[in-house]
């Protein structure tokens, strides 16, 4: 079996989780589904809840760009996050959105962690 996109994504999420745990974040949830949206990782740093999107690429940088930009994606990250907050009764919790980009190339793994990558006004 060739490396499927899904397998790569799952591996990326595992790497990101380990990376964040090593940075001192507490991992609360992985692959949380809320309706059509999905949250890759939900972690906590002190009192701040962090929703993390993980982007995994294959070859140098992020692979042939057309291929991974074109992926059908309808991730409603913020809406999923709002759902998460509601179902867990955390409406007033401080939260932020981070992005972790992972690219693996010939056995080497590069990780970029972008804190506060975007804000939601909902």
């Amino acid at each position, binding site marked *: 079996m060739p490396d499927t996109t899904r397998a790569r994504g799952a591996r990326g999420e595992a790497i990101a989780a380990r990376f964040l745990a090593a940075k001192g974040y507490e991992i609360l949830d992985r692959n949380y589904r809320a309706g059509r949206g999905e949250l890759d990782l939900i972690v906590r740093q002190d009192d701040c809840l962090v929703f993390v999107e993980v*982007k995994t690429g294959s070859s140098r940088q992020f692979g042939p*760009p057309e291929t*991974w930009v074109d992926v059908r*994606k309808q991730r409603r990250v913020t809406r999923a996050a709002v759902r998460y907050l509601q179902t867990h009764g955390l409406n007033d919790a401080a939260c932020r959105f981070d992005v972790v980009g992972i690219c693996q190339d010939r056995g080497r793994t590069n990780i970029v962690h972008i804190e506060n*990558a975007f804000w939601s006004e909902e």
Partner: protein
Amino acid sequence: MSRRATQVEQQRLRAMLALERSLWEGGASYVAGVDEAGRGALAGPVVAAAVILPRSMLIRGLNDSKQLTPAARDRLYVVISCAALGIGVGVVDHEGIDRENIRRANLRAMRQAVDALPLRPDHLLIDGVDCIDWPWPQTPVIDGDAKSLSVAAASVMAKVTRDRLMVECDQRYPGYGFARHKGYGTAEHIEAINQHGLCPIHRRSFRVTRHNGFRSPPSRGQVSRE
């Protein structure tokens, strides 16, 4: 980021959503920004991108791609690809550009980008003065990448995608410096053309490449050498 700096940044981003907001308030749910990269280059494709941003999202640092460093664009490329509701990319190569003309190739790339979106947008905000061949509402916005966050996002996606394609072209056709100037007419590039002649991905229809001492322009598919 300090609290104050965060507020200032959020203010700036909110101001860049003014056009989108008026469309959202008019009932549109999906507004796509559309922009292109590589129009003025002497070689390589023209790349267009269309991006639909979620209503409530402010992406830190997002701005006109020309105002950003390459490192900042790479960072935003990752963030936008995570945050956007939909992204489409269209590429028209040098042959397409020579066959039509740059303006039409450009509009076709934009159309392709919009077609590649996973959702049908209710309204397009297009950088420039032209509308594209598309049966639904659209608004051309002069200087759109500085005025609209969606168009700025599209400009970043188009620019980064094209730059990466040009880095690949550099490996296929070394000696021109495509990895550095991305096909634009820098002194280094012109010098390389004068020395080695054109390579297959040069746009033969561009006058600059003819002015620089090329005797035989351009029957398609044929590489002219000095």
